[in-house]
């Protein structure tokens, strides 16, 4: 289990810190069900992000599971269920 629940805002912050933000995308908008690829994040950006979340929130994430979680909603479910 994570030390505490990771929220969408937490994820937004980590994404910005690890991989920046695409200028065409409103990361603060309603993005829960938007594919990461449509938010401008490739698989490497997601590996970087998951690695940072592991460090910050004391959770262990499987790389394949991370890659298969293609939206913020799915990714947060993986993190908070781990």
């Amino acid at each position, binding site marked *: 289990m994570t030390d505490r629940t990771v929220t969408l805002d937490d994820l937004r912050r980590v994404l910005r810190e690890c991989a920046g933000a695409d200028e065409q995308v409103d990361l603060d908008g309603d993005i829960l069900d938007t594919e990461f690829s449509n938010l401008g994040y490739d698989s490497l950006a997601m590996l*970087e992000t998951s690695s940072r979340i592991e460090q910050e929130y004391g959770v262990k994430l499987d790389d394949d599971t991370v890659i298969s979680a293609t939206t913020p909603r799915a990714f947060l479910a993986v993190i908070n269920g781990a």
Partner: protein
Amino acid sequence: MTRTLVTGLGVVAPNGLGLAQWWAATVHGVSGIAPVSRFDATGYPAQLAGEVPDFDPAVYLPSRLLPQTDHMTRLALVAADWALADAKVDSTALPEFGMGVVTASSSGGFEFGQRELQNLWSRGSQYVSAYQSFAWFYAVNTGQISIRHGMRGPSGVVVTDQAGGLDAVAQARRLVRKGTQLVVSGGVDGSICPWGWAAQMASGRLSTSEDPSQAFLPFDARAAGHVPGEGGAILVLEDAEAARARGASSAYGEIAGYGATFDPEPDAEWPSGLRRAIDLALADAGIVPDEVDVVFADGAAVGALDRIEAKAIAETFGPRGVPVTVPKTMTGRLYSGGGPLDLAAALLAIRDDIIPPTVHVTPDARYELDLVGAAREAVIRTCLVLARGHGGHNAAMVVRASN
């Protein structure tokens, strides 16, 4: 055979950020060599560097690119943006497989790599950035430029130390001749960080002077090594017919000739290959030495190497037979960025009919060189650029007016 034109230039140099600022400084003899500021160099034998001033990457690049790029890649991306804008190229309007990228590199992204190595040993492998997988890599500038501008044609990287920038442009010309209509080429380099510094000191060729006006003195009796710098130039090379077809209105000049050779081992009985590289480049351009208006020398500032270069020049052109200049006395040696920056200087010398100076140097008379100590006005149509890389690489390139 098709002609390869240079239609765009982007410059990031220690004595000027951007083509106009750099060229104005260069013609006026303004040096960018100063004490190292990118890290605390106190206690290191070498204290001076040529650092690109006033570069804030966030001003020029999207935030998506910042976590995944080394300092020198950011400089390269900005130089490429400027070169394409200078050439008035709209990369979205050209066929993606008709555009390639060939840059040179000498060390890759050392500053990024150092930080991740520190993360590895001090915190553990899970703290190493996923972007380390490519951010350190020799080919990273080529890859990032290719991705940013959607250029999917033939691409690559050349690694031959200081000769690499000319070798890359030569490879770009080969690709143009084989049918790629546009190739982004040149080189931007830099590893002014403790790890990079230690690696460079191992060459034994870094100046230990603390006086910026005394530290890098090629062809001077006081020569005692070079000052390292960062930066370089990116060039847009185009097939002349294709450039005309897309509506390009002008070009800086033509890549007219090239030769590359490799030196024998240091104690061999046969001579350096530099003279042969010059001969090959002149023959490739179809010209005789008299047609060369100025030579941009490599300028190692190591006695034995200066002697070889001066001899090759004097034998080719006659004693004091051609103006020779080393504008890199204002920037330090930029490794793979050095040759492309000299190509940019040569092309602007052609445009403006002026030879930029070699600063701070009192030429050793034994070298029999007409070393240009103050900017000199002259009709310039053809330039020879020389670059020599550590380990024996010699490259010579001829650029000339395209009209």
